[in-house]
Protein backbone atom coordinates (compact mmCIF):
# COMPACT_ATOMS: atom_id res chain seq x y z
CA UNK A 1 0.00 0.00 0.00
CA UNK A 2 2.92 2.32 0.76
CA UNK A 3 4.20 1.77 -2.76
CA UNK A 4 0.85 2.85 -4.12
CA UNK A 5 0.89 6.21 -2.33
CA UNK A 6 4.53 6.68 -3.29
CA UNK A 7 3.44 6.26 -6.91
CA UNK A 8 0.74 8.91 -6.37
CA UNK A 9 3.38 11.26 -4.93
CA UNK A 10 5.68 10.68 -7.91
CA UNK A 11 2.79 11.52 -10.27
CA UNK A 12 2.12 14.67 -8.25
CA UNK A 13 5.76 15.67 -8.67
CA UNK A 14 5.73 14.99 -12.41
CA UNK A 15 2.44 16.77 -12.96
CA UNK A 16 3.86 20.06 -11.74
CA UNK A 17 7.24 19.43 -13.39
CA UNK A 18 5.46 19.55 -16.76
CA UNK A 19 4.99 23.32 -16.69
CA UNK A 20 8.56 24.47 -17.24
CA UNK A 21 7.84 27.98 -18.52
CA UNK A 22 5.45 28.61 -15.64
CA UNK A 23 8.10 27.37 -13.20
CA UNK A 24 10.74 29.67 -14.70
CA UNK A 25 8.32 32.61 -14.49
CA UNK A 26 7.61 31.71 -10.86
CA UNK A 27 11.31 31.57 -10.03
CA UNK A 28 11.78 35.03 -11.53
CA UNK A 29 8.84 36.46 -9.58
CA UNK A 30 10.04 34.92 -6.29
CA UNK A 31 13.48 36.42 -6.90
CA UNK A 32 12.10 39.90 -7.59
CA UNK A 33 9.95 39.83 -4.45
CA UNK A 34 12.90 38.47 -2.47
CA UNK A 35 15.01 41.41 -3.61
CA UNK A 36 12.37 43.99 -2.70
CA UNK A 37 11.69 42.51 0.74
CA UNK A 38 15.41 42.05 1.42
CA UNK A 39 16.06 45.78 0.91
CA UNK A 40 13.21 46.72 3.25
CA UNK A 41 14.60 44.34 5.89
CA UNK A 42 18.08 45.87 5.51
CA UNK A 43 16.58 49.30 6.28
CA UNK A 44 14.69 47.87 9.26
CA UNK A 45 17.65 45.98 10.71
CA UNK A 46 19.81 49.02 10.07
CA UNK A 47 17.65 50.86 12.61
CA UNK A 48 17.19 47.94 14.99
CA UNK A 49 20.31 45.76 14.57
CA UNK A 50 19.15 42.82 16.71
CA UNK A 51 15.43 42.92 16.08
CA UNK A 52 13.86 39.61 17.10
CA UNK A 53 17.30 38.27 17.96
CA UNK A 54 18.31 38.13 14.27
CA UNK A 55 21.46 39.66 12.85
CA UNK A 56 21.03 41.39 9.49
CA UNK A 57 22.48 38.33 7.69
CA UNK A 58 20.02 36.08 9.50
CA UNK A 59 17.11 38.38 8.62
CA UNK A 60 18.15 38.32 4.96
CA UNK A 61 18.45 34.53 5.02
CA UNK A 62 14.95 34.46 6.48
CA UNK A 63 13.66 36.46 3.49
CA UNK A 64 15.08 33.98 0.97
CA UNK A 65 13.96 30.93 2.94
CA UNK A 66 10.50 32.49 2.83
CA UNK A 67 10.60 32.94 -0.95
CA UNK A 68 11.98 29.39 -1.35
CA UNK A 69 9.15 27.87 0.71
CA UNK A 70 6.31 30.08 -0.57
CA UNK A 71 5.30 27.80 -3.46
CA UNK A 72 6.08 24.53 -1.67
CA UNK A 73 3.80 25.47 1.23
CA UNK A 74 1.17 26.68 -1.30
CA UNK A 75 0.87 29.91 0.66
CA UNK A 76 -0.62 31.85 -2.24
CA UNK A 77 -2.87 29.01 -3.39
CA UNK A 78 -1.95 26.69 -6.20
CA UNK A 79 -2.37 23.59 -4.07
CA UNK A 80 -4.92 20.80 -4.39
CA UNK A 81 -7.70 22.35 -2.31
CA UNK A 82 -9.56 24.08 -5.14
CA UNK A 83 -9.44 20.84 -7.11
CA UNK A 84 -10.88 18.89 -4.17
CA UNK A 85 -13.61 21.53 -3.80
CA UNK A 86 -14.41 21.23 -7.49
CA UNK A 87 -14.82 17.46 -7.13
CA UNK A 88 -17.06 17.92 -4.10
CA UNK A 89 -19.20 20.49 -5.90
CA UNK A 90 -19.52 18.42 -9.07
CA UNK A 91 -20.26 15.21 -7.18
CA UNK A 92 -17.18 13.46 -8.57
CA UNK A 93 -16.17 12.99 -4.92
CA UNK A 94 -18.65 10.08 -4.78
CA UNK A 95 -16.51 8.20 -7.30
CA UNK A 96 -13.38 9.07 -5.28
CA UNK A 97 -14.95 7.62 -2.16
CA UNK A 98 -15.62 4.34 -3.95
CA UNK A 99 -11.97 3.96 -4.93
CA UNK A 100 -9.87 1.45 -2.98
CA UNK A 101 -7.69 4.30 -1.72
CA UNK A 102 -8.00 6.50 1.32
CA UNK A 103 -9.16 10.00 0.34
CA UNK A 104 -6.94 11.89 2.78
CA UNK A 105 -3.87 9.74 2.13
CA UNK A 106 -4.36 10.07 -1.63
CA UNK A 107 -4.40 13.86 -1.54
CA UNK A 108 -1.59 13.97 1.00
CA UNK A 109 0.62 11.86 -1.27
CA UNK A 110 -0.25 13.97 -4.34
CA UNK A 111 0.35 17.21 -2.44
CA UNK A 112 3.69 16.05 -1.03
CA UNK A 113 4.78 15.25 -4.60
CA UNK A 114 3.75 18.75 -5.68
CA UNK A 115 5.54 20.32 -2.73
CA UNK A 116 8.66 18.29 -3.49
CA UNK A 117 8.78 19.63 -7.01
CA UNK A 118 8.06 23.20 -5.99
CA UNK A 119 10.74 23.08 -3.31
CA UNK A 120 13.33 22.07 -5.90
CA UNK A 121 11.92 23.88 -8.93
CA UNK A 122 10.79 27.10 -7.27
CA UNK A 123 12.93 27.15 -4.13
CA UNK A 124 16.55 26.47 -5.03
CA UNK A 125 17.16 29.13 -7.67
CA UNK A 126 15.75 32.14 -5.74
CA UNK A 127 17.86 31.02 -2.77
CA UNK A 128 20.98 30.89 -4.97
CA UNK A 129 20.13 34.33 -6.41
CA UNK A 130 19.71 35.70 -2.89
CA UNK A 131 23.04 34.22 -1.89
CA UNK A 132 24.75 35.88 -4.83
CA UNK A 133 23.44 39.35 -4.02
CA UNK A 134 23.53 39.31 -0.20
CA UNK A 135 25.63 37.75 2.55
CA UNK A 136 23.44 35.00 3.96
CA UNK A 137 23.86 33.18 7.25
CA UNK A 138 23.63 29.64 5.90
CA UNK A 139 24.94 26.88 8.15
CA UNK A 140 28.00 24.80 7.25
CA UNK A 141 26.95 21.81 9.30
CA UNK A 142 25.13 19.08 7.35
CA UNK A 143 23.13 18.27 10.48
CA UNK A 144 21.46 21.72 10.40
CA UNK A 145 20.47 21.14 6.77
CA UNK A 146 19.13 17.68 7.63
CA UNK A 147 17.04 19.10 10.47
CA UNK A 148 15.86 21.88 8.12
CA UNK A 149 14.77 19.26 5.56
CA UNK A 150 12.83 17.43 8.26
CA UNK A 151 11.24 20.70 9.43
CA UNK A 152 10.21 21.55 5.86
CA UNK A 153 8.67 18.09 5.38
CA UNK A 154 6.65 18.38 8.58
CA UNK A 155 5.69 21.95 7.67
CA UNK A 156 4.37 20.72 4.33
CA UNK A 157 2.21 18.14 6.12
CA UNK A 158 0.84 20.88 8.42
CA UNK A 159 0.15 23.04 5.35
CA UNK A 160 -1.61 20.11 3.69
CA UNK A 161 -3.68 19.29 6.77
CA UNK A 162 -4.96 22.88 7.01
CA UNK A 163 -5.81 23.01 3.32
CA UNK A 164 -7.53 19.64 3.53
CA UNK A 165 -9.91 21.10 6.12
CA UNK A 166 -10.40 24.12 3.85
CA UNK A 167 -11.20 21.81 0.93
CA UNK A 168 -13.70 19.75 2.95
CA UNK A 169 -15.63 22.92 3.79
CA UNK A 170 -17.08 22.59 0.29
CA UNK A 171 -19.33 19.81 1.64
CA UNK A 172 -21.19 22.52 3.54
CA UNK A 173 -20.62 25.60 1.40
CA UNK A 174 -21.63 25.99 -2.22
CA UNK A 175 -18.84 28.44 -2.96
CA UNK A 176 -15.58 27.93 -1.11
CA UNK A 177 -13.74 30.92 -2.60
CA UNK A 178 -14.15 32.95 0.60
CA UNK A 179 -12.79 30.19 2.84
CA UNK A 180 -9.77 29.67 0.56
CA UNK A 181 -9.09 33.40 0.61
CA UNK A 182 -9.39 33.74 4.39
CA UNK A 183 -7.19 30.68 4.80
CA UNK A 184 -4.30 32.09 2.80
CA UNK A 185 -4.55 35.57 4.33
CA UNK A 186 -4.39 34.07 7.83
CA UNK A 187 -1.60 31.75 6.69
CA UNK A 188 0.54 34.56 5.28
CA UNK A 189 0.14 36.57 8.47
CA UNK A 190 0.76 33.81 11.03
CA UNK A 191 3.47 31.89 9.16
CA UNK A 192 5.83 34.85 9.40
CA UNK A 193 5.81 35.60 5.68
CA UNK A 194 5.20 39.32 6.30
CA UNK A 195 7.77 39.69 9.06
CA UNK A 196 9.52 37.09 11.28
CA UNK A 197 7.18 36.18 14.14
CA UNK A 198 9.91 36.93 16.69
CA UNK A 199 9.78 40.53 15.43
CA UNK A 200 6.01 40.77 16.03
CA UNK A 201 5.22 43.17 18.85
CA UNK A 202 4.47 41.77 22.31
CA UNK A 203 2.09 38.92 22.98
CA UNK A 204 1.04 38.74 19.33
CA UNK A 205 4.43 37.20 18.53
CA UNK A 206 4.12 34.58 21.28
CA UNK A 207 0.63 33.61 20.19
CA UNK A 208 1.68 33.43 16.53
CA UNK A 209 4.64 31.18 17.35
CA UNK A 210 2.33 28.69 19.08
CA UNK A 211 -0.10 28.45 16.15
CA UNK A 212 0.28 25.77 13.44
CA UNK A 213 1.08 28.25 10.65
CA UNK A 214 4.50 28.94 12.18
CA UNK A 215 5.48 25.46 10.95
CA UNK A 216 5.26 26.77 7.38
CA UNK A 217 8.13 29.26 7.68
CA UNK A 218 9.19 30.44 11.12
CA UNK A 219 10.10 27.01 12.55
CA UNK A 220 12.03 25.71 9.50
CA UNK A 221 13.84 29.06 9.19
CA UNK A 222 14.86 29.05 12.86
CA UNK A 223 16.18 25.50 12.48
CA UNK A 224 18.21 26.48 9.43
CA UNK A 225 19.51 29.63 11.12
CA UNK A 226 20.57 27.42 14.06
CA UNK A 227 18.64 29.57 16.47
CA UNK A 228 17.16 26.26 17.49
CA UNK A 229 19.83 23.60 17.79
CA UNK A 230 20.27 20.23 19.47
CA UNK A 231 17.44 19.37 21.82
CA UNK A 232 15.65 22.61 20.99
CA UNK A 233 15.65 21.71 17.29
CA UNK A 234 14.10 18.34 18.14
CA UNK A 235 11.52 20.18 20.21
CA UNK A 236 10.75 22.34 17.17
CA UNK A 237 10.23 19.21 15.05
CA UNK A 238 8.04 17.71 17.76
CA UNK A 239 5.95 20.91 17.77
CA UNK A 240 5.41 20.56 14.02
CA UNK A 241 4.68 16.83 14.26
CA UNK A 242 2.17 17.50 17.01
CA UNK A 243 0.25 20.05 14.96
CA UNK A 244 0.46 17.80 11.87
CA UNK A 245 -1.02 14.85 13.78
CA UNK A 246 -3.74 16.96 15.40
CA UNK A 247 -4.77 18.63 12.12
CA UNK A 248 -4.69 15.38 10.15
CA UNK A 249 -6.90 13.81 12.82
CA UNK A 250 -9.27 16.78 12.58
CA UNK A 251 -9.34 16.32 8.82
CA UNK A 252 -10.18 12.64 9.29
CA UNK A 253 -12.99 13.52 11.69
CA UNK A 254 -14.49 16.14 9.38
CA UNK A 255 -14.17 13.75 6.44
CA UNK A 256 -16.16 11.09 8.33
CA UNK A 257 -18.82 13.66 9.22
CA UNK A 258 -18.97 14.89 5.65
CA UNK A 259 -19.12 11.56 3.89
CA UNK A 260 -22.00 10.48 6.07
CA UNK A 261 -24.04 13.29 4.57
CA UNK A 262 -22.89 13.13 0.96
CA UNK A 263 -25.78 13.85 -1.33
CA UNK A 264 -24.94 13.27 -4.94
CA UNK A 265 -27.04 15.48 -7.12
CA UNK A 266 -28.92 13.53 -9.72
CA UNK A 267 -28.20 10.27 -7.93
Amino acid at each position, binding site marked *: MGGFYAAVAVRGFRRYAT*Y*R*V*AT*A*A*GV*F*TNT*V*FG*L*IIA*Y*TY*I*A*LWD*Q*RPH*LGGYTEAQALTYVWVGQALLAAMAQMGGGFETELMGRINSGAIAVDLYRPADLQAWWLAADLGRAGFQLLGRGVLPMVAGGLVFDLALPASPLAWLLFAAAVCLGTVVSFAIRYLVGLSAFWLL*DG*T*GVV*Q*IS*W*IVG*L*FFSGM*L*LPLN*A*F*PGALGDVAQALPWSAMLQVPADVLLQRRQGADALLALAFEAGWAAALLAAGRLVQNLATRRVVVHGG
Partner: protein
Amino acid sequence: MAEAAAQAEPRTPAERTPGTLAESVRAYRLVVGMWMRSTTVYRASFVMTAAGNFAATALDFVTIMLMFSHIHALGGFTLSEVAFLYGTASTSFGLADLLMGSMDRLGERVRDGTLDTLMLRPAPVLAQVAADRFALRRLGRLVQGLLVLGWSLPRAGVDWTPVNLALLPLTLLVGAAIFGAVFVAGGAFQFWAGDAAQLQNSVTYGGATLLQYPPALFSRELVRGVTFVVPLAFVNWLPALHMMGRPDPLGLPGWVDFAGAPVAAACCALSWLVWRAGVRSYRSTGS
Protein backbone atom coordinates in the same frame (compact mmCIF):
# COMPACT_ATOMS: atom_id res chain seq x y z
CA MET B 1 -41.35 45.45 -38.30
CA ALA B 2 -39.05 43.60 -40.63
CA GLU B 3 -38.16 46.88 -42.31
CA ALA B 4 -37.43 48.52 -38.99
CA ALA B 5 -35.19 45.65 -38.04
CA ALA B 6 -33.37 45.94 -41.32
CA GLN B 7 -32.88 49.64 -40.77
CA ALA B 8 -31.69 49.18 -37.24
CA GLU B 9 -28.95 46.91 -38.47
CA PRO B 10 -27.65 48.51 -41.59
CA ARG B 11 -24.03 47.65 -41.08
CA THR B 12 -22.47 44.29 -41.79
CA PRO B 13 -19.47 43.31 -39.67
CA ALA B 14 -17.14 44.02 -42.58
CA GLU B 15 -18.30 47.62 -42.82
CA ARG B 16 -17.64 48.33 -39.20
CA THR B 17 -14.16 49.44 -38.45
CA PRO B 18 -13.06 47.85 -35.22
CA GLY B 19 -9.91 49.30 -33.80
CA THR B 20 -10.83 52.94 -33.36
CA LEU B 21 -10.61 54.20 -29.81
CA ALA B 22 -14.33 54.98 -29.62
CA GLU B 23 -15.19 51.45 -30.74
CA SER B 24 -12.83 50.02 -28.16
CA VAL B 25 -14.30 52.05 -25.32
CA ARG B 26 -17.82 51.12 -26.38
CA ALA B 27 -17.01 47.40 -26.57
CA TYR B 28 -15.18 47.56 -23.26
CA ARG B 29 -18.13 49.26 -21.57
CA LEU B 30 -20.63 46.77 -22.92
CA VAL B 31 -18.65 43.72 -21.78
CA VAL B 32 -17.81 45.27 -18.40
CA GLY B 33 -21.47 46.21 -17.86
CA MET B 34 -22.47 42.63 -18.56
CA TRP B 35 -19.98 41.24 -16.04
CA MET B 36 -20.98 43.82 -13.43
CA ARG B 37 -24.62 42.83 -13.74
CA SER B 38 -23.74 39.19 -13.39
CA THR B 39 -21.49 39.87 -10.38
CA THR B 40 -24.07 41.86 -8.45
CA VAL B 41 -26.69 39.14 -8.81
CA TYR B 42 -24.83 37.15 -6.13
CA ARG B 43 -24.55 40.07 -3.75
CA ALA B 44 -23.28 38.20 -0.69
CA SER B 45 -20.62 36.47 -2.74
CA PHE B 46 -19.55 39.80 -4.24
CA VAL B 47 -19.32 41.52 -0.85
CA MET B 48 -17.28 38.62 0.54
CA THR B 49 -14.78 38.46 -2.33
CA ALA B 50 -14.40 42.25 -2.37
CA ALA B 51 -13.75 42.19 1.39
CA GLY B 52 -11.24 39.41 0.84
CA ASN B 53 -9.53 41.46 -1.85
CA PHE B 54 -9.42 44.40 0.55
CA ALA B 55 -7.97 42.27 3.36
CA ALA B 56 -5.37 40.61 1.13
CA THR B 57 -4.20 44.03 -0.05
CA ALA B 58 -4.18 45.38 3.47
CA LEU B 59 -1.57 42.74 4.43
CA ASP B 60 1.06 44.92 2.72
CA PHE B 61 0.18 47.85 4.94
CA VAL B 62 0.04 45.59 8.00
CA THR B 63 3.67 44.66 7.24
CA ILE B 64 4.60 48.34 7.19
CA MET B 65 2.77 48.95 10.48
CA LEU B 66 4.50 45.95 12.07
CA MET B 67 7.83 47.43 10.99
CA PHE B 68 6.91 50.81 12.44
CA SER B 69 6.06 49.18 15.76
CA HIS B 70 9.84 49.01 16.21
CA ILE B 71 11.06 52.17 14.50
CA HIS B 72 10.10 55.80 13.95
CA ALA B 73 11.57 56.19 10.46
CA LEU B 74 12.33 53.76 7.65
CA GLY B 75 15.11 55.02 5.42
CA GLY B 76 14.46 58.48 6.87
CA PHE B 77 10.72 58.39 6.11
CA THR B 78 8.03 58.53 8.81
CA LEU B 79 4.99 56.25 8.80
CA SER B 80 2.83 59.03 7.30
CA GLU B 81 5.32 59.62 4.52
CA VAL B 82 5.57 55.90 3.73
CA ALA B 83 1.76 55.81 3.85
CA PHE B 84 1.67 58.58 1.24
CA LEU B 85 3.94 56.52 -1.04
CA TYR B 86 1.86 53.43 -0.27
CA GLY B 87 -1.43 55.24 -0.93
CA THR B 88 -0.37 56.71 -4.27
CA ALA B 89 1.17 53.44 -5.51
CA SER B 90 -1.76 51.29 -4.36
CA THR B 91 -4.43 53.64 -5.72
CA SER B 92 -2.78 53.80 -9.15
CA PHE B 93 -2.20 50.08 -9.21
CA GLY B 94 -5.71 49.37 -7.90
CA LEU B 95 -7.20 51.45 -10.68
CA ALA B 96 -5.12 49.71 -13.35
CA ASP B 97 -5.84 46.29 -11.84
CA LEU B 98 -9.58 46.98 -11.79
CA LEU B 99 -9.67 48.17 -15.40
CA MET B 100 -7.01 45.99 -17.07
CA GLY B 101 -6.30 43.19 -14.56
CA SER B 102 -8.04 40.61 -16.75
CA MET B 103 -5.24 40.83 -19.29
CA ASP B 104 -3.34 38.04 -17.57
CA ARG B 105 -6.08 35.58 -18.52
CA LEU B 106 -5.02 35.82 -22.15
CA GLY B 107 -2.68 32.81 -21.90
CA GLU B 108 -5.60 30.71 -20.72
CA ARG B 109 -7.69 31.78 -23.70
CA VAL B 110 -4.82 31.03 -26.08
CA ARG B 111 -4.43 27.56 -24.54
CA ASP B 112 -8.08 26.56 -24.65
CA GLY B 113 -8.69 28.14 -28.04
CA THR B 114 -11.46 30.52 -26.95
CA LEU B 115 -9.46 33.54 -28.11
CA ASP B 116 -10.69 32.69 -31.62
CA THR B 117 -14.25 33.44 -30.50
CA LEU B 118 -13.18 36.94 -29.43
CA MET B 119 -11.34 37.48 -32.71
CA LEU B 120 -14.40 36.62 -34.75
CA ARG B 121 -16.53 39.24 -33.04
CA PRO B 122 -16.75 42.61 -34.74
CA ALA B 123 -15.17 44.44 -31.81
CA PRO B 124 -11.56 45.28 -30.94
CA VAL B 125 -9.88 42.24 -29.39
CA LEU B 126 -7.86 44.26 -26.87
CA ALA B 127 -11.02 45.78 -25.42
CA GLN B 128 -12.66 42.36 -25.20
CA VAL B 129 -9.67 40.74 -23.49
CA ALA B 130 -9.29 43.66 -21.07
CA ALA B 131 -12.97 43.43 -20.12
CA ASP B 132 -13.05 39.64 -20.03
CA ARG B 133 -14.46 38.41 -16.70
CA PHE B 134 -14.22 41.94 -15.33
CA ALA B 135 -13.78 41.47 -11.59
CA LEU B 136 -15.62 44.15 -9.65
CA ARG B 137 -14.20 42.67 -6.42
CA ARG B 138 -10.90 44.38 -7.31
CA LEU B 139 -12.56 47.52 -5.96
CA GLY B 140 -11.32 46.15 -2.63
CA ARG B 141 -7.71 46.90 -3.56
CA LEU B 142 -8.56 50.36 -4.89
CA VAL B 143 -10.57 51.29 -1.78
CA GLN B 144 -7.77 50.08 0.51
CA GLY B 145 -5.23 52.24 -1.34
CA LEU B 146 -7.55 55.27 -1.26
CA LEU B 147 -8.15 54.90 2.49
CA VAL B 148 -4.41 54.87 3.26
CA LEU B 149 -3.88 57.75 0.85
CA GLY B 150 -6.66 59.78 2.46
CA TRP B 151 -5.21 59.13 5.92
CA SER B 152 -1.74 60.23 4.82
CA LEU B 153 -2.72 63.42 2.93
CA PRO B 154 -2.77 65.84 5.90
CA ARG B 155 0.13 64.07 7.64
CA ALA B 156 2.82 63.49 5.00
CA GLY B 157 4.23 67.00 5.18
CA VAL B 158 2.99 68.01 1.75
CA ASP B 159 2.66 71.75 1.20
CA TRP B 160 -0.71 71.90 -0.61
CA THR B 161 0.13 74.57 -3.15
CA PRO B 162 -2.01 74.73 -6.31
CA VAL B 163 0.75 72.90 -8.20
CA ASN B 164 0.81 70.03 -5.71
CA LEU B 165 -2.99 69.93 -5.60
CA ALA B 166 -3.07 69.47 -9.37
CA LEU B 167 -0.13 67.07 -9.36
CA LEU B 168 -1.83 64.54 -7.03
CA PRO B 169 -4.78 63.47 -9.25
CA LEU B 170 -2.56 63.67 -12.30
CA THR B 171 -0.07 61.35 -10.59
CA LEU B 172 -2.76 58.81 -9.77
CA LEU B 173 -3.96 58.75 -13.40
CA VAL B 174 -0.44 58.65 -14.84
CA GLY B 175 0.42 55.80 -12.48
CA ALA B 176 -2.68 53.87 -13.50
CA ALA B 177 -1.79 54.41 -17.18
CA ILE B 178 1.77 53.13 -16.69
CA PHE B 179 0.56 50.04 -14.82
CA GLY B 180 -2.16 49.58 -17.46
CA ALA B 181 0.51 49.62 -20.17
CA VAL B 182 2.42 46.93 -18.23
CA PHE B 183 -0.75 44.84 -18.04
CA VAL B 184 -1.29 45.11 -21.81
CA ALA B 185 2.35 44.35 -22.67
CA GLY B 186 2.38 41.48 -20.17
CA GLY B 187 -0.83 40.11 -21.65
CA ALA B 188 0.58 40.39 -25.17
CA PHE B 189 3.69 38.51 -24.06
CA GLN B 190 1.43 35.53 -23.39
CA PHE B 191 0.88 35.19 -27.15
CA TRP B 192 4.45 33.88 -27.20
CA ALA B 193 4.70 32.29 -23.75
CA GLY B 194 1.23 31.31 -22.60
CA ASP B 195 2.38 29.72 -19.36
CA ALA B 196 4.38 32.73 -18.24
CA ALA B 197 1.44 34.69 -16.78
CA GLN B 198 3.36 34.89 -13.49
CA LEU B 199 6.14 36.86 -15.13
CA GLN B 200 4.15 40.06 -15.31
CA ASN B 201 3.31 39.73 -11.61
CA SER B 202 6.91 40.61 -10.85
CA VAL B 203 6.43 43.98 -12.58
CA THR B 204 2.81 44.65 -11.58
CA TYR B 205 2.46 43.32 -8.03
CA GLY B 206 6.21 43.48 -7.48
CA GLY B 207 6.34 47.04 -8.82
CA ALA B 208 3.42 48.11 -6.65
CA THR B 209 5.16 46.67 -3.59
CA LEU B 210 8.45 48.34 -4.51
CA LEU B 211 6.83 51.76 -4.89
CA GLN B 212 5.25 51.53 -1.43
CA TYR B 213 8.69 52.06 0.10
CA PRO B 214 11.06 55.04 -0.14
CA PRO B 215 13.48 54.69 -3.08
CA ALA B 216 16.41 55.38 -0.75
CA LEU B 217 16.01 51.82 0.59
CA PHE B 218 16.95 50.19 -2.68
CA SER B 219 20.22 49.86 -4.56
CA ARG B 220 20.96 52.57 -7.13
CA GLU B 221 20.92 50.00 -9.97
CA LEU B 222 17.41 48.92 -9.01
CA VAL B 223 16.21 52.53 -8.82
CA ARG B 224 17.85 53.30 -12.19
CA GLY B 225 16.19 50.21 -13.65
CA VAL B 226 12.69 51.29 -12.61
CA THR B 227 13.35 54.84 -13.77
CA PHE B 228 14.86 54.31 -17.19
CA VAL B 229 13.97 50.73 -18.23
CA VAL B 230 10.47 50.10 -16.86
CA PRO B 231 9.58 53.67 -15.83
CA LEU B 232 7.72 52.73 -12.64
CA ALA B 233 9.44 55.60 -10.79
CA PHE B 234 7.06 57.95 -12.63
CA VAL B 235 4.05 56.20 -11.06
CA ASN B 236 4.64 57.86 -7.70
CA TRP B 237 8.26 58.09 -6.57
CA LEU B 238 9.26 61.17 -8.56
CA PRO B 239 6.04 63.21 -8.18
CA ALA B 240 5.44 62.11 -4.56
CA LEU B 241 8.97 63.01 -3.49
CA HIS B 242 8.46 66.37 -5.18
CA MET B 243 5.18 66.92 -3.30
CA MET B 244 6.84 66.01 0.01
CA GLY B 245 9.72 68.36 -0.82
CA ARG B 246 12.33 65.62 -0.75
CA PRO B 247 15.15 65.12 -3.26
CA ASP B 248 15.06 62.07 -5.50
CA PRO B 249 17.97 59.67 -4.94
CA LEU B 250 19.18 59.84 -8.55
CA GLY B 251 19.43 63.66 -8.48
CA LEU B 252 17.49 64.08 -11.73
CA PRO B 253 16.63 67.61 -12.95
CA GLY B 254 13.45 69.06 -11.43
CA TRP B 255 11.32 69.01 -14.57
CA VAL B 256 11.51 65.20 -14.60
CA ASP B 257 9.06 65.15 -11.66
CA PHE B 258 6.43 66.54 -14.01
CA ALA B 259 7.27 64.30 -16.99
CA GLY B 260 4.84 61.54 -15.93
CA ALA B 261 2.16 62.24 -18.53
CA PRO B 262 4.39 61.99 -21.63
CA VAL B 263 6.17 58.97 -20.13
CA ALA B 264 2.82 57.27 -19.56
CA ALA B 265 1.74 58.11 -23.11
CA ALA B 266 4.96 56.60 -24.47
CA CYS B 267 4.40 53.46 -22.37
CA CYS B 268 0.85 53.08 -23.68
CA ALA B 269 2.03 53.54 -27.29
CA LEU B 270 4.78 50.98 -26.81
CA SER B 271 2.47 48.44 -25.21
CA TRP B 272 0.00 48.93 -28.07
CA LEU B 273 2.80 48.06 -30.54
CA VAL B 274 3.70 44.97 -28.51
CA TRP B 275 0.05 44.00 -28.41
CA ARG B 276 -0.31 44.39 -32.20
CA ALA B 277 2.83 42.33 -32.80
CA GLY B 278 1.40 39.67 -30.47
CA VAL B 279 -1.94 39.53 -32.26
CA ARG B 280 -0.20 39.26 -35.62
CA SER B 281 2.03 36.42 -34.48
CA TYR B 282 -0.95 34.52 -33.06
CA ARG B 283 -1.63 31.15 -34.63
CA SER B 284 -4.82 29.54 -33.48
CA THR B 285 -4.53 26.07 -32.00
CA GLY B 286 -6.90 24.89 -34.69
CA SER B 287 -4.84 26.10 -37.62
